[in-house]
């Protein structure tokens, strides 16, 4: 075997290894989608079909009827979380990267530690605190709680990005007479667009996919995000798998859209938030 053939064979082998890994990665998602098109009889027949067996839209009809309000609720919670995260994190990240403040170390350390705090710790207390101030079972309450995933991450990612902006840009704006706020709004935010999108995408996904705060801070009546909607389908002894699969497929849609539309922001954002933050 010549060297060229050898390296070609290696490339093929690696491609096959990667393909095998991707099959494992993608199969569970594929199985949900197949399952969502199966009839109840098929789902309870005791056989998993690799391709839809007698495909039907029945499950989607059920779920659209029962869950479309919940999808809207999750959409609203996701957008609310993204807006809250941006409102809090963009100015903070700017201050923590471009102003020499004495508290910078303290705040950045607090944000790093905040990322570590388990949600169940916050959920238990927030439930009671929200009880006093009437935020239990409200959108603002849920969005504030969902921000606990998104905000520390958002500040750290944006801060890492702001470091890359040259100080001369801001100085030039100031020399031209712009106030600090104008500089921030007219110069800094437009330049930070890609980082802001990354952060907004993640905050949205956090709010959209949240389960623990929905389970604790909402009481199951009135506001019902899609995750709680799915939870109610999971009975102890019998589960309506068709409806569960179709509702889960709905719950995966934003992630799919983000993967296609915002792909280039995702990997870089994840890396920046974890390591460079």
């Amino acid at each position, binding site marked *: 075997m010549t060297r060229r053939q050898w390296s070609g064979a290696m490339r093929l082998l*690696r*491609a096959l*290894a*990667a*393909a095998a890994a991707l099959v494992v990665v993608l*199969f569970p*998602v594929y*199985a*949900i989608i197949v399952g969502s098109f199966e009839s109840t009889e098929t789902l309870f027949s005791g056989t*998993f079909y690799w391709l839809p067996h007698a495909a039907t839209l029945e499950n989607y009809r059920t779920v659209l009827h029962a869950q479309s309000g919940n999808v809207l609720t999750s959409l609203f919670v996701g957008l609310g979380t993204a807006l809250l995260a941006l409102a*809090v994190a963009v*100015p*903070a990240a700017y201050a923590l*990267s471009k*102003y020499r*403040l004495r508290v910078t*170390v303290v*705040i*950045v*350390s*607090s944000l790093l*530690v*905040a990322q*570590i*705090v*388990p949600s*169940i*710790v916050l959920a*238990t*207390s*927030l439930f*009671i*605190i929200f*009880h006093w101030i009437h935020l239990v079972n409200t959108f603002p309450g849920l969005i*504030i*709680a969902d*921000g606990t995933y998104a905000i520390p991450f958002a500040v750290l990612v944006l*801060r890492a990005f702001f*470091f*890359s902006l040259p100080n001369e840009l801001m100085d030039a704006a100031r020399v031209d007479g712009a106030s600090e*706020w*104008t500089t921030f709004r007219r110069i800094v935010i437009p330049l930070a667009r890609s980082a802001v999108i990354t952060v907004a995408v993640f905050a949205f996904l956090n709010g959209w*996919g949240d*389960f*623990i705060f929905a389970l*604790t801070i909402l009481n199951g009546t009135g506001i019902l995000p899609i*995750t709680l909607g*799915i*939870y109610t389908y*999971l009975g102890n002894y019998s589960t309506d798998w068709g409806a569960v*699969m179709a509702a*889960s497929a709905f719950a*995966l849609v934003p*992630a799919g859209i*983000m*993967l296609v539309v915002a792909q280039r922001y995702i*990997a870089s954002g994840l890396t920046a938030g*974890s*390591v*460079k933050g």
Partner: protein
Amino acid sequence: MHESTQAGAAAPTPATSGATGPSQSSGGGRPPWRSAFRSRQVAGWLFLTPAVAYLLFAFLLPIIYNLMLSFEHTSPATIAKFAAPFAGLANYRYIFHDPTTQMAIIHTFEFTFGSLFFQFIIGFALALLFGTEFPGRTVGRALVIVPWLLPLFVTGVMFKFLFQFEGGAVNQILMAVGLAHHPIDWLNSPHLALWTVLIANIWLGVPFFTVLLYSAIQDVPTEVTEAARIDGAGPWQRLLLVIVPIILPVIEIVLLLGFVFTVKVFDLVIGLTGGGPANSSQLITTWSYNLSFQQFNFGQGAALNNVLLVLALICSPLYLWLSRDSLQGSSGGER
């Protein structure tokens, strides 16, 4: 500090936004550079205020309240009140003598270290694989992060579907390749339920390791690995003696974050096993939820929360130390 008076006038606030313009007149008798410095300090503080308020309200307050709660005798009736009767260490005594709690703590360790071990090995292998040249690697790299983006609860439900006793894809695959002769009752077996949670968690955590280790490996200068190759180092030597030492800081931080993200897993377990059967897949998080929100023993739940919090925060000094470069610094230019 001195946020009032003259410097405050120069500080832009959201309300006065664009119209403010240059406001150097407000410096009083001070040299202009000094007043500019002051007004910048105030602006910085104003930019920071929402985040500080949020940290205090959504993190510090609940943590402190959780601590108080763990020393209180709570009941459904006390939730509406600000304080319940003092309980001393009763809640802690209860949870440390409760067999289910002990089991949940042990499960949490098994689950966390089991996850980390496999996630790291698989994640590292994939990072190396995607660092090499082969057809389709760009698409592969994009798709490998899919598990990371899915709602955790939905992932749990998804695996519940895959692990079904009858009609579950996992059993069907195992039987097709001859690894099992009969379907395995994964979710109803106290010996296996924790394994299903572990497997699902490995699946969803691998991308985190792959992405971060991949970008670290890409940052290793090729001259260094080339030099090692010329000096006669084989692939394993290059990996263990050159690449690993260079990316060690990233490995440390990835393992550390992996640890703290794994000890707090909750949604996945509820979606997959609900902690059962017979509490056999109960973790600290799910058992704490059970104590607080199903048995309404918020004091006991809070005490267990503090155990979890200590477990997670043990890592924070190390995390801060590993991130020390990013703590300070306010310059522009470098990444």
